[in-house]
């Protein structure tokens, strides 16, 4: 080997050695990294404590799904209860037929065939029943079937049952999933105030209504008794505060239990249990309209309560002829016209006003628009009246026919009469609404209160007079309209609308009975049906409202001034 060759060999040997050393360092480094990584991981595993995901101890407080509803005294009217819904995964159900039979025994309101059909379905998820009670849940758990499971739910409950059912309405479940369910109001306040009740920022503050549970229960009790006693097909009652328009009680019969699901109904739609007669129904309310006409006439300055009106000659318009019921009296004052419910006298006042002014007046009382009360149904209760308002419409509307309004419209109008003439808007929220524009003057209002007091003290509504409470009001017996046109002879809607106490008006009360008959006399007039009902109602609710009877001295008798002209046919 030459030196040259040796040198080359030596060189390559040295290069090889260097490379081998480098490799060793690399391998050592790799091992070191691996050891550190493994050690770190082991350390982490050794230090960290095992934790399991926990639903209950998650830290977040469960928020109520929907705000509660209270009455004006803070009693709970609508609340939530924790509950469960039962669902199944049919793929994991063992022995579907036997399971269905066992489930049907636990859940009495779901038929066995239905459960069997659900459990044998080609699906991975079926609802079986929602909601279920704790006892039912325990029974289902004891079946031990792996395909059955529960979803936690908040259930809306109305602890007072039927109380104020038409006010509260009800809820239904929308967008239901396993982990959540949204409750949506389906009627009444629940529907109207849905945004307020489901708003997450105000869930903790309950919604306070103007309803008083005790008064509401009494009103419902008396109305129910009256509907049964007089054989009526339905009834409605409203109690409203004059100054604020707060509705203290609002009842409608037939009613329903908002805790129970809707049932199929085959009867007449007008008597559907969910139909609120006080707010939703529009009716021709008859003579209860007369004080409105009289107030407008007094306000216009064409009559005073003492002005004498010719009530002897019937009013004729075209081929229509309007007469009074009962004894014909030649001349009556405006007070007597209202007191004895004279059609002729009222028509003459409306004719004296003229169609233009009469219609304007009704408009100011709010008779042509929905009431705007906080109920979903109120928006659809649009008063019905002829599109072409003729002089004949003025004649019929003056005594409450030809124009259909809801009882709540009438109660609001009476509240306006009583509230020193300022427009009262009904409200179901505690606090009410501020009085609106001046519809009639305070003087007319005071005069009308005395006229209404006369009706109860000496007129058609004597049976409602409760000593010490100075009730004033007006009866109305309206023949019901046939669906095909015209009026029934033997079916009436008898109504009483009143104010108490008339010297210092605080409350408006309205009672309406559908097709009542007094079993003693066989009469249908309001004076025999709605009026005694109102009297009994007043007797029982006035102490609950904190009104003590006024032992006022005997009112001086009303004297009829004679000799005033009654020339009103313009």
């Amino acid at each position, binding site marked *: 080997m030459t030196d040259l060759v040796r040198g080359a060999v030596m060189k390559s040997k040295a290069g090889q050695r260097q490379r081998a050393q480098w490799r060793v360092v690399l391998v050592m480094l790799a091992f070191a990294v691996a050891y550190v990584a493994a050690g770190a991981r082991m350390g982490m595993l050794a230090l960290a404590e095992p934790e399991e995901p926990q639903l209950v101890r*998650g830290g977040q*407080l469960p928020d109520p799904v929907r705000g509660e509803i209270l009455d004006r005294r803070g009693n*709970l009217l609508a*609340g939530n209860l*924790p509950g469960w819904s039962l669902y199944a995964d049919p793929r994991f159900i063992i022995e579907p037929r036997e399971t269905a039979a066992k489930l049907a025994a636990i859940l009495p309101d779901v038929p066995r065939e239905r459960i069997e059909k659900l459990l044998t379905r080609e699906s991975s998820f079926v609802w079986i029943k929602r909601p279920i009670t704790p006892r039912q849940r325990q029974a289902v758990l004891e079946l031990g079937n792996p395909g059955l499971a529960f979803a936690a739910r908040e259930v809306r409950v109305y602890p007072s049952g039927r*109380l104020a059912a038409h006010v509260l309405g009800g809820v239904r479940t929308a967008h239901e999933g396993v982990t959540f369910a949204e409750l949506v109001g389906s009627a009444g306040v629940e529907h109207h105030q849905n945004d307020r009740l489901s708003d997450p920022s105000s869930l903790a503050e309950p919604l306070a209504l103007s309803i008083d549970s005790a008064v509401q229960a009494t009103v419902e009790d008396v109305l129910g008794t009256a509907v049964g006693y007089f054989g009526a097909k339905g009834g409605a009652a409203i109690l409203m505060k004059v100054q604020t328009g707060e509705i203290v009680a609002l009842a409608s019969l037939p009613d329903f239990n908002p805790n129970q699901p809707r049932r199929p109904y085959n009867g007449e739609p007008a008597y559907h249990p969910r139909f609120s007669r006080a707010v939703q129904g529009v009716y021709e309310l008859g003579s209860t309209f007369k004080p409105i006409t009289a107030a407008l006439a007094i306000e216009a300055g064409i009559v005073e309560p003492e002005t004498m009106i010719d009530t002897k000659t019937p009013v004729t318009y075209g081929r229509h002829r309007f007469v009074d019921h009962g004894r014909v009296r030649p001349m009556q004052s405006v007070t007597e016209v209202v007191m004895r419910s004279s059609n002729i006298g009222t028509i003459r006042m409306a004719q004296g006003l003229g169609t233009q002014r009469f219609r304007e007046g009704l408009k100011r009382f709010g008779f042509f628009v929905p009431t705007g009360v906080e109920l979903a149904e109120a928006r659809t209760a649009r008063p019905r009246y002829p599109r072409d308002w003729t002089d004949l419409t003025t004649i019929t509307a003056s005594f409450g026919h030809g124009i259909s309004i809801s009882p709540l419209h009438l109660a609001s109008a009476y509240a306006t009469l009583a509230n020193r003439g300022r427009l009262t808007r009904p409200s179901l929220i505690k606090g009410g609404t501020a009085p609106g524009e001046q519809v009639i003057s305070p003087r007319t209002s005071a005069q009308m209160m005395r006229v209404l007091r006369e009706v109860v003290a000496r007129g058609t509504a004597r049976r409602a007079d409760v000593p010490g409470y100075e009730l004033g009001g007006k009866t109305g017996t309206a023949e019901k309209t046939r669906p095909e046109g015209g009026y029934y002879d033997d079916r009436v809607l008898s109504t009483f609308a009143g104010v108490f106490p008339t010297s210092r008006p605080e409350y408006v009360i309205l009672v309406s009975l559908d097709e009542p008959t007094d079993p003693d006399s066989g009469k249908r007039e309001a004076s025999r049906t709605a009026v005694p009902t109102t009297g009994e109602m007043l*007797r029982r609710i*006035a*102490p609950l409202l904190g009104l003590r009877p006024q032992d006022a001295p005997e009112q001086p008798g009303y004297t009829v001034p004679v000799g005033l002209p009654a020339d009103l046919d313009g």
Partner: protein
Amino acid sequence: MKYFTLLISVSALFVVVVWAYNVNYETRQTFDRLSTLRAEIAAEGEALQVLRVEWAWLNSPARLRELVRAYEGELHLTHLRADHFSYAGSVPFPPLELNPEELWPIPEAHQNRPEIPLLPFPVPRPNSGGSLQIQWSEQ
């Protein structure tokens, strides 16, 4: 000196390690307690909700009416009526043997409204300066 510094450092490290260890465990325990408390609060809230609904159900007017009807024989509860209102003056208070300035004009009130009977059972005298004495009325 070198060893002394080393000793100080090592013992300081030891103290810090013990302290950190304790803080770590205390924090864990606090978290644990916190979640337990939260779960308890949630459970209490749920119980409260149930109790509120139950209370409302127990006091619902329809149920109370049924109870009044059921215990008619013992309680004799009736509807509150307008003629149940009365005057404070018609309540018979005990004999007038104390300070004459504190007297209630009962005989006068009774004369004015003789139709309201004096109560034949013991009544406490109001505002008698602390001690309520129960005595039989003169009736």
